[in-house]
């Protein structure tokens, strides 16, 4: 087992205070449009329900490529589905530049034998998944078996590296409860991806907050702590690890609060500029965010708010 670096403690009160400070930044009109388009390009348009149908997948894929027909609006970064929908999605999105992400490893609980979880991952990749969103073994983490968590992430990570897929490691922070745990799990995930060689490619490995099946999902303090782990990993190992908050980000306003946080936490960390302000290193896992981004874009253009039904529900 490769060593996992020591993790700093996190003071929850000051972390929450810092996270809140990002929400008081004002972004004016011109920057807002840029921020909205940037946020759109970072969306992983997601549906993860037992009742998902091929028709719903078709709707989402169409929306992913062209969120706002007839307007200057980028495609989203990826769609995110259960493995059974990957083949279809891959056919629909061929040549569009929109990636297909698949949850795997016994999502959302991860409570399956390791060989089943690895096979789940292999199948998704065989079906054409560009990105794998795996879940960590929270049972092992919370019982202190960090080596198990590390080894399992490393195994999945090797599968991804060998097949050229990217990986997002879902910590399920709502189940980890404390920010100390969030930081520790982030450090373990990054160390495991590093050990597998996945991180040789910038942006090939992400850490992700949540499955969306547990409340609370993504919060700003949790995301801040994960961004700090990413920042420290860059300082320590020179790697560029991506970040994906998922679940609960529904409004454009929330999205740009997150972008402000990325801007101020990772700006200047990797030389001039901020590579994390791109879909290659930052994603929003969301379903309803895209339409609110569109509403705000329309507001900037016309000065009036559109009704919810003015935009297609994917």
């Amino acid at each position: 087992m490769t060593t996992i670096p020591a993790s700093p403690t996190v003071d929850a009160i000051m972390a929450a205070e810092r996270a809140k400070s990002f929400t008081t930044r004002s972004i004016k009109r011109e920057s807002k449009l840029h921020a909205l388009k940037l946020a759109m390009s970072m969306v992983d348009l997601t549906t993860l329900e037992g009742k998902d149908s091929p028709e719903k997948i078709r709707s989402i894929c169409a929306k992913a490529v062209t969120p706002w027909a007839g307007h200057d609006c980028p495609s989203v970064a990826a769609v995110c589905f259960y493995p059974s929908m990957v083949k279809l999605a891959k056919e629909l999105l061929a040549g569009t530049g929109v990636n297909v992400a698949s949850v795997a490893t016994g999502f959302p609980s991860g409570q399956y034998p390791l060989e089943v979880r690895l096979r789940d991952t292999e199948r998704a990749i065989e079906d054409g998944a560009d990105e794998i969103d795996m879940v960590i073994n929270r049972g092992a983490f919370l019982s202190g078996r960090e080596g198990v968590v590390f080894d399992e992430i490393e195994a999945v990570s090797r599968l991804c590296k060998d097949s050229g897929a990217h990986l997002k490691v879902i910590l399920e922070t709502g189940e980890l409860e404390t920010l100390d745990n969030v930081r520790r799990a982030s450090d373990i995930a990054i160390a495991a991806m590093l050990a597998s060689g996945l991180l040789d490619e910038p942006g090939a490995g992400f850490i992700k907050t949540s499955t969306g099946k547990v409340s609370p999902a993504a919060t700003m303090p949790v995301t801040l702590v994960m961004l700090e782990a990413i920042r420290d990993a860059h300082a320590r190992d020179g790697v560029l690890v991506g970040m994906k908050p998922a679940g609960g980000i529904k409004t454009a306003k929330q999205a740009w609060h997150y972008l402000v946080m990325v801007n101020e936490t990772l700006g200047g960390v990797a030389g001039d500029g901020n590579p994390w302000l791109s879909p290659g290193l930052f994603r929003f896992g969301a379903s309803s965010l895209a339409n609110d981004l569109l509403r705000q874009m329309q507001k900037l253009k016309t000065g009036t708010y559109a009704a919810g039904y003015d935009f297609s529900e994917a």
Partner: protein
Amino acid sequence: MIESAGIFEYATAPEGVRPTLRDRYGHFIGGAFVEPAEGEYFRTINPATEEVIAEVAEGSKADVDRAVNAAREALPAWSALPGVERAKYIYRIARRVQELSRELAVAESMDGGKPIRESRDVDVPLAAQHFFYYAGWADKLGYAFAGGGKFVGIGEDGAPLTPALSPGGEREQRHRVISPVGVCGQVIPWNFPLLMASWKLGPALAAGNTCVLKPAETTPLTALMLAEIFEEVELPAGVVNIVTGAGATGAAVVEHPGVNKVAFTGSTEVGKKIAHAIAGTGKKLTLELGGKSPNIVFEDASIDQAVEGIVQGIYFNQGHVCCAGSRVFVQESVAGEVIAKLKRRMGELRVGDPLDKNTDVGAINSAAQLSTIERYIDAGKSDGGAFWQAGGGVPSSGYWCRPCLFEGVQPSAVVAREEIFGPVLAVMTFRTPAEAIQRANNTPYGLAAGVWTDKGSKIFEIAKWLDAGVVWLNTYNKFDAASPFGGFKESGFGREGGVHGLRSYVTFG
């Protein structure tokens, strides 16, 4: 490879509200604005633009005399009002401060240079909170102090009134008498003008005193807006009088024989002069003076949050804070990491237009203060400290100093001993807890301290040994109306805030 989508820029977000300000303000005496006796006015400017905002009356001895007399005349009726009636006035003031919070915040930022983010989120809400808090005490003064008592007002002869007879004709002997001190002369500084006014006026009014308040000469506007609020809520004439001016006006307030109590917040140098001036006069005195507060970061602290605390400790309000954490002591094993993270974080601080909602660090309060800060920076350099200043520009007009620090500072250096009152941090290291305590306490001051560690037992052990009126644990610069604030050693005596803050505004008979 990663394609960068371009840098994420904030645009300026100027606060739109503009307060209604007069071109010229007289003194507020006896419930109305009056012309100064000698007809002199001075200008108050916006330190971010150097533009004149308004002219303000220069207070002479005659003006102070008039104000003290008005306060004296108002005292018997005000102090004899039932507590619940005094409370109603103070609640009205508090509500009006809340209602006018944006106007007051903008005026505070225009006159003093502090970022609107702070005046809006800290100064004005806390000022309102202090009025609300002390309004609540006005009818409970008999229960505010250990042993209780019977609160009575002051009579026309200046002596406490006699408590009423019980129904049986017996005088109540069980209770001691608690009465107002009388006329309070209050001299406040320029770093938190409205908040300091509320700290001083809230407890004084609740306890039935009348006041002569002298705001700082560079920041008189929000106190004068407060005077307009007093007019609006029909506070009885003379209960609060505001005389503007510089040091000589303050001295006239302090030295006036009709003043029963002096409350001063400001520099230790002036505080000492005041103590000399009133020695032997029988006046009561509270002093809230300077500081050189230590912020101690242990190796087991949550480092990112400790860095946040260091920034809040010293760069809040451009370092114009009496309890600023201007000396940081970092445990040697984490000094490199802390300093590197601190510098990166300092680079994220936005310095500029105080009225821009994105601004983190505003303008230095005055040209004089800027030259003081620059003098200290020069002294720090010649003492051999390694100087580092966050990059970036500053506006072409106005008074500015980008956040900066000195590394490798020795405890004997001027920047480690004297209060700079600017965004200048002295960083020092230590190896053992005993050394941290010894270095932290090695100062003539004792206003505040910060301790950063994730270990609970260490927090309490260290806090026990620090000579400071306030010790913040894993946080810094947090204030609350219910919490007392004040100093040890040359940082002054007496407490403001909380029930403790009432103690200086009553006498026991």
